[in-house]
């Protein structure tokens, strides 16, 4: 069979990472086929990369570097592409907390299957927006749509069902102190699925391996570093294989190396499963490299939204001051 035919077959295959690696010339199709020949069970699409790593065809860091490089290419191309469908939409959302208007008639759209970053100064309403997306907070006015479902019109039961489509990584990780790493990650599976304990154990170990925490099962949250806690929280968010992942400052309080590692991990995760991801971040300007789309939230309003490469070049004085971290400008700090 000529190589072109093989590539055509590969395009239709359910293993996107193997396909990308072959197309990029990183590995040959024979390698992929040899690796798959060893697999007795049906291949999970997001596992193909792991199989290639396990078979020694490509190393884990090489695979991650490849995926990240592909993501960077994709991120640049995103600006020129038509907007993807909307996963989450705010229509005129208002929220007042402790007498202060935190969200002021906010209209926003989160593109489906992309990474969206929400940035802005502290207290600008970012975390409150995230909590509205998952229905942990209800707007005083306006509507929040997840797909075509308006959260305000749902019954409690329907809202719980919508939440099952989400996972959320909280700013402080929100790991359960009384549970070890394994139980923390297994928790949503035990509570929300009917998998048997063996399947749950398998899923948990696979996810922990994905975030680089194999063998840490028995550790308790107070025995983990900040970076490890974030990774456990990420594993807990990923293990249920949700459609949408919300990440509230996943790199807050971490050193630049761990911050970079977490960004790589998020990107790697995205490239394997193509979740819709929403990240709140103060990692400026790094976050512009790790997302397709950016929303700038300031004093409860959306100042700008669009592809990260476009927003980064914004001439809006508030955005410029925020990105450059200047003390002087429209944002009065001191």
């Amino acid at each position, binding site marked *: 069979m000529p190589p072109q035919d093989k590539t055509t077959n590969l395009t239709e295959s359910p293993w996107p990472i193997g396909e990308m690696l072959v197309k990029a010339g990183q590995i040959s199709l024979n390698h992929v086929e040899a690796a798959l020949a060893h697999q007795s069970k049906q291949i999970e699409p997001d596992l193909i990369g792991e199989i290639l790593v396990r078979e020694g065809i490509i190393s884990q860091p090489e695979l991650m570097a490849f995926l990240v490089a592909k993501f960077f290419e994709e991120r640049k191309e995103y600006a020129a592409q038509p907007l993807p469908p909307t996963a989450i939409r705010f229509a005129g959302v208002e929220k007042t907390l402790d007498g202060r208007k935190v969200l002021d008639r906010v209209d926003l759209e989160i593109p489906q299957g992309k990474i969206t970053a929400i940035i802005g100064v502290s207290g600008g309403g970012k975390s409150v927006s995230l909590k509205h997306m*998952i229905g942990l907070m209800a707007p005083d006015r306006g509507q929040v749509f997840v797909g075509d479902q308006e959260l305000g019109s749902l019954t409690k039961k329907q809202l*719980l069902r919508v*939440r099952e489509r*989400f996972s959320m990584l909280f700013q*402080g990780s929100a*790991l359960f*102190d009384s549970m070890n790493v394994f139980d923390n990650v297994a928790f949503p599976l035990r509570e*929300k699925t009917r998998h048997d304990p063996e399947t749950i154990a398998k899923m948990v170990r696979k996810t922990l391996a994905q975030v680089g925490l194999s063998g840490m099962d028995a550790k308790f949250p107070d025995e983990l570093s900040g970076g490890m806690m974030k990774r456990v929280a990420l594993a807990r968010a990923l293990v249920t294989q949700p459609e949408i992942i919300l990440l509230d400052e996943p790199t807050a309080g971490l050193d630049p190396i761990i911050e970079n590692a977490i960004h790589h991990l998020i990107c790697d995760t995205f490239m394997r499963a193509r979740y819709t991801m929403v990240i709140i971040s103060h990692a400026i300007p790094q976050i512009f490299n790790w997302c397709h789309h950016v929303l700038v939230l300031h004093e409860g309003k959306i100042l700008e939204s669009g592809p990260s490469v476009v927003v980064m070049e914004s001439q809006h004085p508030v955005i410029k001051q925020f990105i450059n971290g200047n003390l002087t400008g429209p944002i009065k700090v001191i």
Partner: protein
Amino acid sequence: MFLFLLTSLFGVVRPPYRLDNLLKQIVFIGIHSLFVIVLTAAFAGMVLALQGYYILSRFGSEGMVGPMVALAIVQELGPVLTALMVTGRAGSAMAGELGVMRIKEQIDALESMGINPLKYLIAPRVEASLITLPVLTAIFNVVGIFGGYLVAVQLLGMSSGTYWGGIESKLAAKDIYISIIKSFSFGLIVAWVCTYMGYFTTRGAEGVGRSITSAVVLTSVLVLIWDYFITSVML
């Protein structure tokens, strides 16, 4: 606050039933409070017998020490002191634990997973409190009466037959019934107030401290107020 109680009670009766969660709370509220309950009961019975003996001897009625100790403990001190001890030991811990879970966003994390925190966190605590308070009160009553026996009979030289005979003749089934009803209602108050205070904690570590204090103070006051009302109705 009433809505919180009703929703939690609804969580108790509605499946799925989490037996492991319930057992954990029974151990925490019941087994772990046992030592303090036994200690308090023994000394409460002892001091009651001591005081009672000297007061009653003024009227030549020292033979009534047994019934006095038993009735005071079974009807009043047993349920009230048990509730106050459990509030101090387990209720404060409940408020603190839930408060920390609130400020560390663990309760939000449960909600974000589509898990009802009232069902998962509050219902087992309410249920365990309703089960353990009557049992702890029964233990308090028995130990307290034995504490009185030690002082009245072994220390003050009263006859064992007079002590036990007096109790047997004066302590009625109704007294035990009152004790059970009181302890059951106190169990509800302890779990309700302490979990409510912890669940709605705000403003960080300081807020957790405030929740614990409020939980202990409010529960203790409510137990004493409710005790007055329920006693006046049941006597």
